[in-house]
């Protein structure tokens, strides 16, 4: 997030898109709801599903799946043609405005209505509402990113925020809501194929030299590594021979699972380090038991870049170890000692090689976390990014055209499927499905379908049906609901026994390599 969670309550207008916030970030959703109910903020929700937040919204725009660039360009078209853009901000802080302007010219409300299904007037109203806000916050989540145009979608939202000068101010910002507790930290720590800690590129010789010096090694690889979505097909083709998987369950969370299962099965050696015998662990050669979050010391970095302490409450069961200890022991056996005494000692090394974390110490975050960048121990941390300038200097407007999703409905596969989560479960369910109460509330998977489609395909509420895509099929219970639009169904992906990801499309965004979980074509067939 460019801004903080608490800052949401400072916004005059909040645009929420591709985030079912009340289910996936419930506590953050309370900030949004309070802003609307008690602080006179107006909310625009843009989402294909009639999520709970729509009840609090001034406007709910319901786009066709995968048409985000079109509606965002549509808003910008209206804002520019009605002269509502922030000229001062554009002049001082950005470049390439003209390129954006000529791109969005064709995205008239009528043209956008044809692509997105959102009535032209709603595009106009939403554009005016957002543009006229003193401070407008944008919140988004995987509904924006999990598309073959995910990167385009995010850049488009950044365009919109810059156009109205909504960056670097309280109550503004472009705010991705991170779905996993430490996805921010895993990225910050360089758990990515192209960067070391704090996003220092591996292709940068100076960065490599710094790390080589810090680690006392030579010959760090100078080419970008592979994303998980590339490793899997390469494992399938025998080009990846071994994998070491820590705390992940790709055999439920990956797209196109049937293909993924073959790929992992094809490895010469698979080692899985986890707290449970996950679907992925079952096919491993070696399983290494690790301690869970309640059994270890350390830090997580949350979605607002706040580095916070994790503390040990109970002993780990049996012989389970901290993840870092297991990794260090493997390193030692491969000839490189990583002899850390404890997590604090690792954090002290992190400070030295991570400029944005340089001023953060365990002592400083003992009571309350700090937002990075925090370059020195005197620095108070940075709750709001880009207040003076962008990281690269001036913000660039990207002229982005609309591209339709990779897979379209046709005669054989006449319905769209979109996937997501429910309140009571988390990701692949390894944790939440082991809590009886949560299972009691949400015991099994379901497919949400509109009453119209149910009638059209002769499906009864509560019946078991088979849902099939070009890649696989699952059996799942029907739930007739007005959450979904006609022509689209929704299935949560938590449930391994009816894994929605057997159906999803592994088509990737060309830049981020994120799969298009949010759109694929499916068909339904009668009682299983």
């Amino acid at each position, binding site marked *: 997030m460019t801004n903080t*969670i608490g800052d949401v309550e400072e916004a005059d207008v909040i645009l929420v898109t591709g985030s079912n916030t009340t289910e996936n970030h*419930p*506590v953050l959703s*309370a900030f949004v*709801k*309070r802003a609307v*109910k*008690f602080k006179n903020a107006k909310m625009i929700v843009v989402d294909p599903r009639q999520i709970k937040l729509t009840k609090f919204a001034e406007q709910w725009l319901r786009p066709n799946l995968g048409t985000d660039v079109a509606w965002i360009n549509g808003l910008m078209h209206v804002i520019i043609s009605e002269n509502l853009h922030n000229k001062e901000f554009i002049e001082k802080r950005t470049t390439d405005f003209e390129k954006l302007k000529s791109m969005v010219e064709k995205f008239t409300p009528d043209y956008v209505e044809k692509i997105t299904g959102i009535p032209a007037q709603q595009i106009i109203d939403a554009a005016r509402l957002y543009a006229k806000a003193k401070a407008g916050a944008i919140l988004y989540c995987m509904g924006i990113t999990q598309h073959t145009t995910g990167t385009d979608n995010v850049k488009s939202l950044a365009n919109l925020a810059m156009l109205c000068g909504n960056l670097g101010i309280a109550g503004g910002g472009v705010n991705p*809501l*991170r779905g996993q*507790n*430490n*996805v*921010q*930290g*895993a990225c910050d*720590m*360089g*758990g*990515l*194929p192209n960067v070391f*800690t704090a996003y220092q590129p591996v292709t940068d010789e100076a960065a490599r030299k710094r*790390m080589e010096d810090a680690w006392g090694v030579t010959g760090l*690889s100078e080419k970008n*590594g592979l*994303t*998980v*979505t590339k490793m899997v097909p390469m494992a399938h083709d025998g080009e*990846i*021979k*071994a*994998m070491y998987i*820590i705390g992940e369950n*790709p055999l439920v969370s990956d797209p196109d699972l049937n293909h993924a299962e073959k790929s992992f099965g094809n490895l010469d050696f698979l*080692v899985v380090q986890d707290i449970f*015998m996950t679907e992925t*662990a079952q096919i491993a050669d*070696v399983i*290494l*038991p690790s301690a869970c*979050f309640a059994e270890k010391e*350390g*830090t997580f*970095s949350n979605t607002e870049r706040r580095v*916070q302490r994790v503390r*040990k*409450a109970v002993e780990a*069961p049996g012989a*389970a170890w901290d*993840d870092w200890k297991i990794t*260090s022991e*493997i*390193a030692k056996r491969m000839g*490189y000692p*990583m002899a850390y005494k404890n997590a604090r000692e690792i*954090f002290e090394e992190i400070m030295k090689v991570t400029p944005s974390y340089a001023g953060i110490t365990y002592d400083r975050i003992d009571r309350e976390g700090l937002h990075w960048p925090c370059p020195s121990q005197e620095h108070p941390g940075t709750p709001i990014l880009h207040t003076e300038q962008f990281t690269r200097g001036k913000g660039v407007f990207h002229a982005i055209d609309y591209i339709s999703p990779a897979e379209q409905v046709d005669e054989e596969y006449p319905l769209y499927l979109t996937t997501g989560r429910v309140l009571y479960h988390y990701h692949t369910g390894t944790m*939440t499905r082991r*809590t009886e*109460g949560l299972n009691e*509330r949400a015991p099994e998977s379901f497919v949400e379908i509109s009453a119209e489609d149910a009638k059209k395909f002769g499906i009864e509420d509560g019946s078991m049906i088979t849902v099939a895509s070009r890649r696989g099929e699952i059996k799942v219970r029907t739930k007739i609901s007005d959450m979904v639009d006609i022509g689209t169904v929704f299935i949560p992906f938590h449930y391994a026994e009816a894994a929605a990801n057997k159906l999803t499309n592994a088509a990737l965004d060309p830049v981020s390599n994120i799969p298009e979980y949010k759109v694929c074509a499916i068909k339904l067939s009668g009682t299983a």
Partner: protein
Amino acid sequence: MENQNTIVININGNRFNFVKGDTILDVARQNNIEIPTLCHLKGTLPTGNCRVCVVEIAGEQDLTISCETKAAAGMIVQTESSRVVASRKQTIKKMLSMGNHNCAVRAPHEESWTQYQLKVQGEDNSPELCPAWGDCRLQDLAYYYQVSGSDYSNVQTLYSMEMANPFIIRDFSRCILCGRCVKACNEIQVNDAIEFGYDGDRKKIVAGDDKPLKDSDCVFCGECVQVCPVGALVPKDARFDRQWESKKVRSTCSYCGVGCQIDFHVKNNRIIKITGAEDTAPNDGSLCVKGRFGFNFVHSQDRLTTPLIKENGKFREASWDEALDLTSKRLSEIKDQYGADTIGVLTSARVTNEDNYAAMKFTRAVLKTNNIDHCARL
């Protein structure tokens, strides 16, 4: 030395500056003057429901509710005058007599004591004292003001206990109708699931048109449980776990990216309860159903407790040395035979920064490949 713009209030004989808009309670708290409260809940509009926070203002005939009354220039306030104390005693006594407050604050010499305990134990279906005993605002106040509920005859329990959901017990017999839960639900979490229902003696906190929580709009965030000052709302799995038997450990929730600050309540190496850490960002005490109630996995029988090695298609238990030797040997062999870039590492958005850093360093400095990623995209 006061200039004309300074506004001053007199509390218990001392003069304090205040900012326009502050309530009498705000000014008192800013200056470490204790005024007891029950229904008052930070971050919500005051209701003046419970009347525990009354104070005496010179020149006013009636006592004043300090949580909802704005401080005014020249006000002369007494927070513990005999009238105030008498009023608070009366209020507390009335609340104590409203229901099954079977803690020691009821006079033990009372003849009906045994009979009363038996009645409550029957309704509780347990020989334990009230679940909130020792962690109850009403009990604290009763001790402080030396009040017992013995002057009142036992009232009938109008509404039976609701246990029909996995997380929260609603014990109406112990509800003092302070309304903190309603405030928490409507003004903090904004789930709008509960409100005051019925009138007069039949008044009750209801979900929807008086449904069980499980059939209502309730999403089991448990904010109501956390703010309940008495034993009316208790976590089902930790009903009779006493506060003094556990230690609290502050940490960060491991579900979504909000990073709520939590307090583990730990007893005999087990987490018995999780509550939201108050007065700290980002969540200021709030949690969701997963963060508050979804921790059973930690102590699950399914946890992996020993390294495992697969032989002939089956896992067998192994020592750490065996498993680590095998892992490092196989990774070294594959690296030597096919090259470092044929190995991939998936680190995790679930583990700590320190764990991630170790995995990152291992991949790059030891394996010598950049093939490291995690499930940020999934």
